């Protein structure tokens, strides 16, 4: 049974970029910072591609943000997603706003499955998928993972970790929880959020990048969707965490033991 899947692609600071707080604490220094798709969203896109390769269907990729967020949608299209929707909104976002806007996209597109990164690596809130599921009255399977490792044969074969039931009405999702892994079966449509070990996202191929340029990318104006766009979680001030001073190098285990046992008294 073909699946229509909605995935997200948020534009975030590259995790390899050095993040520094502005002296007045009003934001971060953006000069010299690169941007890319949220790594957890890349995993979401990859999972959607694997499900489509297995079952057929369509992948719609959505992003919310300024005009530059089109870059991240194109990146997902280059990986193989079919078309994009950019919800234009300049200004701060919080998971309440994001989930309200995604709920509107959901109502327009009526997908069978929504797959989002479990968190974006800028605000690290880990909320949007759960808010979305509740708003839509759907089941949620957060922190999707799989039992096989990322070096396993199943991963080499690019098998989806999210398993569609034979009757096509639900998916089984292995979740990372404290003390082990849990499996949930959720009725479609459903919301899934991805954890790190669900898959290794593919790189876009050159033909993929060329094709992506011709794929449909629709723009919606957030202000026209009838959603309260005022963030409810308001950042007042940012600061750098207290820096930790490096300590001393010890010559050998003997000296290390003395430091730990006699000086720090932790063992």
């Amino acid at each position: 049974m073909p699946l229509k899947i909605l995935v997200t692609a948020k534009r975030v600071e590259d995790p390899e970029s050095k993040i520094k707080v502005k002296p007045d604490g009003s934001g971060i220094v953006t000069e010299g910072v690169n941007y890319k798709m949220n790594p957890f969203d890349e995993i979401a896109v990859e999972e959607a591609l694997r499900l489509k390769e297995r079952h057929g269907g369509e992948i719609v990729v959505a992003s919310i943000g300024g005009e530059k967020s089109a870059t991240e949608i194109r990146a997902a299209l280059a990986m193989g997603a079919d078309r994009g929707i950019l919800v234009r909104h300049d200004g701060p976002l919080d998971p309440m706003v994001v989930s309200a806007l995604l709920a509107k996209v959901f109502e327009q597109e009526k997908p069978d499955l929504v797959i989002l990164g479990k968190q974006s690596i800028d605000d690290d809130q880990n909320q949007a998928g759960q808010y979305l599921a509740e708003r839509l009255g759907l089941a949620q399977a957060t922190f999707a993972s799989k039992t096989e490792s990322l070096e396993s044969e199943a991963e080499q074969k690019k098998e989806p970790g999210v398993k569609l039931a034979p009757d096509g009405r639900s998916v089984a999702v292995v979740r990372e929880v404290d003390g082990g892994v849990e499996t949930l079966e959720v009725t479609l449509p459903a919301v899934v959020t991805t954890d790190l070990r669900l898959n290794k996202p593919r790189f876009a191929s050159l033909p993929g990048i060329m094709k992506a340029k011709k794929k449909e990318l629709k723009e919606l104006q957030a202000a026209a969707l009838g959603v309260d766009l005022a963030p409810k979680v308001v950042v007042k001030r940012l600061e750098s965490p207290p820096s930790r001073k490096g300590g001393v190098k010890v010559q050998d285990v003997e000296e290390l033991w003395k430091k730990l046992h006699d000086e720090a008294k932790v063992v």
Partner: protein
Amino acid sequence: MANVLIVAEQSGGAIRKATLHAISAGRELARRTGGELQLALLGKGIGALAEELAGYGAGVHAADAAVLEHPLAESYAPVVAEIARAVQATYVGAAATAFGKDLLPRVAARLEAGMATEVLGFGGNGAEVTFRRPMWAGNVLAEVEIATPMKVFTVRATEFPAAAKEGKGAVRAAAVSVDAAALRTRYAGFKEVKSARPELTEARVVVAGGRGTKGDFKPIETLADELNAAVGASRAAVDAGWVPNDWQVGQTGKVVAPELYVAAGISGAIQHLAGMKGSKVIVAVNKDPDAPIFQLADYGLVADLFKALPELAGKVKGSR
């Protein structure tokens, strides 16, 4: 006056330790705002646990029903939201465990509340509470304000002390109006990763290994057992399938703050450091003298972990 509701977490017939840290956060908020602290406990056959929880001096709202046997966000969220409304809670919180992170945003959506995840502490003045929380993998600390009437949060357990028992609260049965037949989520099993060692986020000592182990965690585990420590791992070691997922320490894994953290064969990627830099004493053992981990380790030893760790384990053994 602003009442506070803390959602407790239980598994395997016990209250999770992380909950005790969340109770401390709840007490702090209640004290500041002049409100009352209340606790919610959900599950099946939880009568005795509810009584135990009442020993922390707050009223316990126990939702005990077959439909709540497994902690499904879909069935738990409406029950928690109803308790929150019944006790007129302004603040609804839990520990930032997998359970709390899964459930609380869904509760927040139901209460039309904004939420702060992984809170490290409270700021602001008097009853005007702000939340301190990490962003960008802990590279930035933010002070945030939640502008909705009800405010939801999870706390990083290591940032608040474990609550001690004091007084005796009343246990009340909470209404459960979840229709099992209408649920869209079905629990289909749990695979426990068993360990005789202390839980990673609760251990006094953590010994962690990374790429430098080349997949052989023996020296890590031997030292850990000598120190009665939990075993942790870097993302590289977990991704390689060498060790279970839930050993991962880091921004995207578990955040730990033990008294002693031994990082062996771990270079110290930003995302790993975010998960352990709150540790009191950090020891790094690495063959590479330029490994970034040395920049924040209190004691750095440039050595082969396969030689150094067994030697250290021998010292520990000999000292007893």
